[in-house]
């Protein structure tokens, strides 16, 4: 084995430049493949990050203005959802895991010691933060059932509001702030990175408190729900819309009377997009790699041609066809895998460097974050390389094995 390797190194050393250039082809192929895959993953990470702290299967339903005349009622009738709709959905539609109503005012003033901030004011039941389950609470706690039951005057505020109201270093939890001129106690601070932080420009209070303060009664502005696992979100959305439309006498084909948004839709679209991008990347990357491998195959053919005489001599001295073939295959596999491995290392290294640079500079590129390559992909690439290296050498090697010693020694 060691002798065999030495024989190969002999021949490789004879043509240093050629070996280097050939190896570079494969190196470049793998290098580009890894870079492309890494950047693809970086884009995916970036886009996924943009979904913020939202779980990817929630559905929102809200009332709009009718656009289709129905049952003797005219157009532009405003539909107001209510607590009864939530109860109806709960009772009549299976497959709902969590359902929560929300009442809100888009623009309210929040004040603290002379400072103030605008924020969306929301009244929510405690289920609401189960839908926003991925939202991190940096300080304090989430609203709970007792807050709702006892109609407590408590709020949780987003980090954007907190930064505007409080000096750095001040713990907002327990402080009393004015929310639309009503004094309330802060019980928690959350950070929702959706909308590039815009979702953190919000204030949440118990739904019961909200109703009492603003007299919204049983009115609900938005219904949030999540399907049970295994339930098709699109099917659930359809059923809910049907029911709510029936309850409010909205024409079944009226898309404006009752409106909805299903997070599964963009998530699905983005996933489809990235499947496409990944396929494309592999296509381009493998193409580049193939060019490198064709280069290896080509060089091996030339090598065999050039070494016809040498191979002939070896055969006359007793080299079996097997030893000729295996030496050439080993040579091609060696060049491919060493070059490919270098490409892998350099590719991953560069990706890590970029990721490190982005992290340490704190830069936030749109739709790009944390480029990386799966370990599994790297292993696949290496195995692919070895197989392909052997394949690249196969044709020339078989040709070499067919050389007859006489012909070879005639060749001058």
């Amino acid at each position: 084995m060691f002798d065999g390797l030495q024989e190969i190194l002999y021949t490789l050393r004879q043509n240093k430049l050629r070996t280097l250039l050939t190896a570079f082809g494969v190196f470049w192929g793998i290098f580009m493949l890894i870079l492309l895959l890494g950047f693809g993953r970086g884009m995916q990470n970036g886009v996924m990050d943009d979904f913020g702290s939202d779980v990817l299967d929630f559905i929102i339903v809200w009332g709009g203005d009718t656009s289709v005349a129905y049952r003797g009622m005219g157009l532009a009738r405003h539909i107001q959802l209510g607590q009864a709709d939530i109860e109806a959905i709960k009772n009549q539609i299976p497959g709902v895991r969590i359902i929560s109503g929300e009442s809100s005012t888009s623009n309210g003033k929040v004040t603290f010691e002379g400072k103030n901030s605008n924020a969306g004011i929301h009244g929510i039941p405690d289920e609401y933060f189960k839908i926003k389950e991925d939202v991190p609470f940096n300080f304090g706690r989430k609203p709970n059932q007792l807050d709702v039951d006892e109609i407590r005057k408590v709020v949780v505020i987003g980090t954007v509001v907190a930064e505007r109201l409080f000096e750095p270093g001040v713990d907002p939890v327990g402080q009393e702030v004015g929310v639309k001129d009503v004094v309330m106690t802060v019980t928690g601070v959350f950070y929702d990175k959706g909308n590039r932080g815009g979702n953190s420009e919000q204030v949440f209070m118990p739904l019961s408190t909200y109703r009492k303060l603003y007299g919204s009664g049983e009115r609900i502005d938005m219904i949030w729900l999540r399907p049970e696992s295994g339930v098709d979100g699109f099917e659930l959305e359809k059923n809910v819309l049907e029911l709510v439309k029936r309850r409010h006498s909205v024409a079944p084909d009226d898309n404006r009377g009752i409106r909805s948004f299903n997070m599964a839709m963009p998530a699905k679209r983005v996933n489809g997009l990235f499947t496409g991008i990944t396929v494309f990347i592999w296509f381009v990357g493998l193409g580049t790699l193939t060019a490198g491998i064709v280069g290896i195959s080509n060089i091996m053919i030339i090598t065999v041609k050039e070494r016809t005489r040498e191979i002939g001599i070896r055969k006359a001295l007793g080299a079996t066809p097997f030893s000729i073939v295996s030496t050439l295959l080993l040579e091609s596999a060696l060049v491919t895998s060493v070059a490919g491995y270098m490409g892998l290392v350099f590719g991953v290294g560069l990706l890590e460097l970029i990721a490190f640079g982005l992290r340490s500079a704190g830069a936030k590129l749109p739709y790009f974050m944390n480029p990386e390559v799966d370990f599994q992909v790297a292993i696949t690439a290496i195995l692919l390389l070895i197989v392909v290296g052997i394949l690249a050498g196969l044709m020339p090697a078989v040709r070499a094995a067919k050389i007859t010693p006489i012909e070879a020694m005639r060749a001058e």
Partner: protein
Amino acid sequence: MIRLSDIHKYYRSGEQSLHVLKGIDLHIQEGELVSIMGSSGSGKSTLLNILGVLDSYDQGSYALAGHSVTNLRETQAAHLRNKFLGFVFQSFNLLPFKNAAENVALPLYYQGVGRKERNYRAEQYLEMVGLSDRKHFMPNQLSGGQKQRVAIARALVCKPKVILADEPTGALDSRTTQEIMSLFKEVHRLGNTIIIVTHEPDVANQTHRQIYLKDGRVTTADQVHLQHEAVAI
């Protein structure tokens, strides 16, 4: 040692078929020093290739050291060459990127002999051909005669039954030719069977038996012993 009977060989190129060997009968005994002569086109190289298991034949039979050489697969042929035959070529055919000792050791590598043993034996044979001081020289640093000595050492290193030499002196001047022939004779005295293909009467006359090929047939063998003695005197 070598027994050929009624060997025929055709070369086909497209429609045409060239009948190169037209029934060769030949018997070479162990320990003989034989030359095969003939003008170019007489089929002597073809015969040597068949003797060296480098080429196949179309008809007849060939026995080498008791082994029948018929329809061998490449691998078997390779083993046979490695074990029984040593080759010496006109153009030396040393591997240019290996030094003298490595060239000599190469057949042993294909026998699976260990590195140390290979180097030891290679040095022994280099010493025998008088080149122990050049063992680390590359072929292009050696003169023609020295290259051929290395080739002879390489042919001997596996202790073959037969040494086949194809115009071994064709590329050498007369003085070196004489040196190489002395070496062959010395090797012969050690008990080796040697077959030399040549077109130089000077060389042929130094062998114990000449075989003349003409148009693919053996015209005369033997009878030359005396002639050789006469020339030598």
